[in-house]
């Protein structure tokens, strides 16, 4: 015999919230990994600029800036991660409550609506749900503000990468190598931009 149909439904409709958090977390992890790569690339660029000497003074300065940028980005992402892990608790509360409320509703349906105490159950349930969702909404707002702030930081990273490209042109014999490094920077930063855009569109709660 199979499990009753309505229960299958429940599992599907409420798995959405947790799935959203998982997606947000995965996106953050991807950005963290990329930030780590930029940090390494910037270190390499600093050494390369040192070897190029006077021909790459400007490039060296920019590489140092890019390294600081990668470190700032890592800090931003750590803060975002903390926010999402906090939201797992809130979402779990909502999911658990919705699941219980649905099973209880099924029990009340089977028993007939005249069962005593039903109105109290609804009132308590709605109040708790509203409270949990308000908490999630506040978290969502905080997360979005933090993503926007990170987007501004990445804009700055983009400017640094473009400037590095221009500086690379004055690198004399090292110019092709410096050009390669600055192109890599630009690509990685574009990748982070895309990830942040995806992140900015994710919502912890449905509107």
């Amino acid at each position, binding site marked *: *015999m*199979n*499990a*009753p149909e309505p*229960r299958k439904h429940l599992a599907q409709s409420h798995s959405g919230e947790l799935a959203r958090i998982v997606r947000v977390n995965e996106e953050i992890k991807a950005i963290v990994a990329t930030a780590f790569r930029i940090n390494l690339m910037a270190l390499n660029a600093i050494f390369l600029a040192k070897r190029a000497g006077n021909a790459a003074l400007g490039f060296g300065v920019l590489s140092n800036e890019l390294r600081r940028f990668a470190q700032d980005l890592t800090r931003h992402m750590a803060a975002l991660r903390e926010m999402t892990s906090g939201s797992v608790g809130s979402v779990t509360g909502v999911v*658990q409550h919705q699941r*219980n*409320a649905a*099973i*209880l509703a*099924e*029990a*009340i*349906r*089977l*028993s*007939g609506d005249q*069962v*005593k*105490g039903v109105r109290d*159950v609804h009132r*308590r*349930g709605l109040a708790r749900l509203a409270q949990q969702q308000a908490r999630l909404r506040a978290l969502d707002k905080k997360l979005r503000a933090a993503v926007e702030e990170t987007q501004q930081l990445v804009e700055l990273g983009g400017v640094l990468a473009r400037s590095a490209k221009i500086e690379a042109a004055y690198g004399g014999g090292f110019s092709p190598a410096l050009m390669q490094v600055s192109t890599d920077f630009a690509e990685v930063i574009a990748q982070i931009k895309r990830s942040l855009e995806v992140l900015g569109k994710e919502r912890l709660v449905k509107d």
Partner: protein
Amino acid sequence: MKQAHCIYQNEDHRWLAIARDPGKPGFIVDTNEYLVMSGEDALLCDPGGIEIFPSVFSALSSECDPTRLSGIFASHQDPDIISSLALWLEFKPDLKCYISTLWQTFLPHFGGDESTFVPIPDPGMTIRVGGLELQAIPAHYLHSSGNFNLYDPKAKILFSGDVGAALLPADHNDLYVQDFSRHIRHAEGFHKRWMGSDRAKRDWCERVSRLEIDMMVPQHGAIYQGADVQRFIHWFSALEVGVLRG
């Protein structure tokens, strides 16, 4: 759907057995739930798992106003016993749950908070329901390490949890044991494998032999009544338990 059967009544003192659910998914072990009512109070014994909650709730509501429910007695910590706890609390947040002191901090994983649980000490305790004084009787290691039966001296009913449990074939729907020797075959494997301690078993047999019992109502399978209660105690005392095979 499960149905509530009245197995004892003396004025407002009643015992309901919520047993046999033909609509239950086959992958879930069949369970019995029991409700003891007296005056304005009702105590639910081993309310069961999450999956069967709607069925138990509606069977209970058909015979009793569910807001009268004042407590839950959990013989032990198993999911088929008490995983529906959060749902009962959703309906009635001030419910008290009586459970062995051993499991007091484990059960909140199913639901409830520090105000929910009333720990039962190892020697047992009295649980008041309306005008009744029910006794939590130790049945440790049968099978759970912190395990209790519930005895109603007025009705002479012993709720025995997993002791006396029989895993009956789907077409065995009798509420009461009809033929002890045929019935007990379905209990043998379960008791040999699940009950871990011979010493605890002998202890239990001795303890319950001193009680006056008209009905022994287990959490799985049919109800023992009259002479079948003593038959069960004799059978159990002679059974080798804690056996992995054979």
